[in-house]
């Protein structure tokens, strides 16, 4: 594999002050296979970034590293000014304001929509606090607001397990929103959705732009196009190309890895 990607990744986005997430030379290998190979990536505050790439390009692994699920073999992951995420565990990172939506929707099926959101709501995670927790007026307000943004208002008291696939995806996004995170990591938010649901999701995400920093991993090119955001192409664990949708579409290496052989 070429070393061009890294240089490429840097040149297209030189490090700026409002950088909120900064990955540098991150490598992860699972028994021999290099899932991430010196991946370097810079995300600016308030940016919407879509990440694409063929299977095994390392998209999900990248998210695992950011959220503390996987410890990188080498490299640094800096959040904000100087928080090294590689030193923290899942809960701590989540509490820093980095929310993640999983590829497979994981909402708490045995809780109601409302309760799912309540759990996610941003307040103390301390055991005894949760024991004594009372829903304050503005908690309720936030929950209602989120229910509206995710279009789940009329489902508030349904068991999450009873929701449709798309609704579960939205609920999970809602659970991230209500926690009011700095960064939202969305792994294949429209996988398995109908066209209609996909459109709605695209709208939802566009609405979030600016308020939050969003990183979206997706295969559905129509969807990526709809988002019309900056695109990063991963390949074999490192950045292959980065730029506007048109830029990457005409990028020869990209075309090669997608059609090639």
């Amino acid at each position, binding site marked *: 594999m070429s070393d061009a990607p890294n240089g490429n990744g840097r040149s297209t986005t030189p490090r700026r002050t409002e950088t909120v997430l900064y990955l540098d030379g991150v490598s992860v290998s699972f028994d021999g*296979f290099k899932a991430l190979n010196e991946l370097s990536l810079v995300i600016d505050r308030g940016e919407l970034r879509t990440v694409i790439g063929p299977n*095994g390009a390392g998209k999900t692994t990248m998210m695992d590293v950011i959220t503390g699920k996987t410890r990188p073999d080498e490299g640094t992951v800096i959040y904000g000014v100087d928080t090294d995420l590689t030193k923290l565990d899942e809960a701590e990172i989540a509490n820093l304001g980095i929310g993640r939506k999983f590829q497979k929707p994981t909402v708490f099926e045995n809780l109601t929509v409302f309760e799912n959101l309540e759990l996610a709501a941003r307040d103390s995670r301390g055991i005894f606090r949760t024991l004594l927790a009372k829903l304050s007026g503005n908690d309720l307000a936030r929950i209602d607001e989120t229910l509206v943004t995710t279009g789940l208002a009329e489902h508030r008291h349904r068991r999450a397990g009873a929701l449709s*696939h798309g609704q579960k995806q939205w609920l999970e996004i809602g659970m991230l929103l209500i926690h009011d995170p700095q960064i939202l990591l969305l792994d294949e938010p429209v996988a398995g959705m109908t066209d209609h649901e996909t459109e709605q999701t695209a709208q939802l995400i566009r609405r979030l732009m600016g308020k939050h920093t969003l990183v979206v991993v997706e295969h559905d090119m129509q969807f990526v196009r709809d988002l019309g955001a900056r695109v990063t192409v991963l390949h074999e664990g490192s950045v292959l190309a980065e730029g506007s949708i048109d830029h990457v579409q005409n990028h020869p290496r990209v*075309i090669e890895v997608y059609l*090639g*052989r």
Partner: protein
Amino acid sequence: MLNVEAIDLFYGASHALRHVSVTADVGKVTCVLGRNGVGKTSLLRAIFGLQSIRSGKILWEGEDIAALKPHERARKGLAIVPQGRDIFPRLTVYENLITGFAPLAKQLRNIPEEIYQLFPVLKSMLNRRGGDLSGGQQQQLAIARALITRPRLLILDEPTEGIQPSIIKDIERVIKLLAARGDMAILLVEQYLDFAQELADTIVVMERGEVVMNGPKTSLDAEQVRRYLTV
């Protein structure tokens, strides 16, 4: 031949396959194309009974095998080279190969010499652990392992994924050879048009769990196919 007729497949509430119909003829290579996440692998898992379908038929040599267990389908002559190869990591190469004896009658339980002719590299490392092989070697092992079951339907799921070009050429050669033998139907799933066009007789393009194009390679507009695959 294989007739997949209008199958639907769900993961929980997620609708992964929507009325998908595919056919694969003996002696021909049918290639299913599509970006990842469009349901190609789901289709294969359905054909092999690793995922249960909600509706539709899976006809193999005229018989509906949708209700059969995977190992029973293997007995009927189906074999798969899965995505990611799924070599048994702690079995030796030889042991990996002879797992293919399971669906065979006693007298067939041997490793045909042709296997080693197709994949000479394997012969030299029969006692290595499958997990220690390189990606390319694993891919070859996976194909060899499938061939040992004397399949009449060979299913390959992205055999070129993460493989160095030299070995891709080998694999390409092997698949051509098998197709030429004309005793098995080959169902090849790919993301990469060029590789597919090299081999395919029929091309099926999937998008979002649906078949959007289907026909003989020659009849399809390559440009349009390209659009479905590229970014």
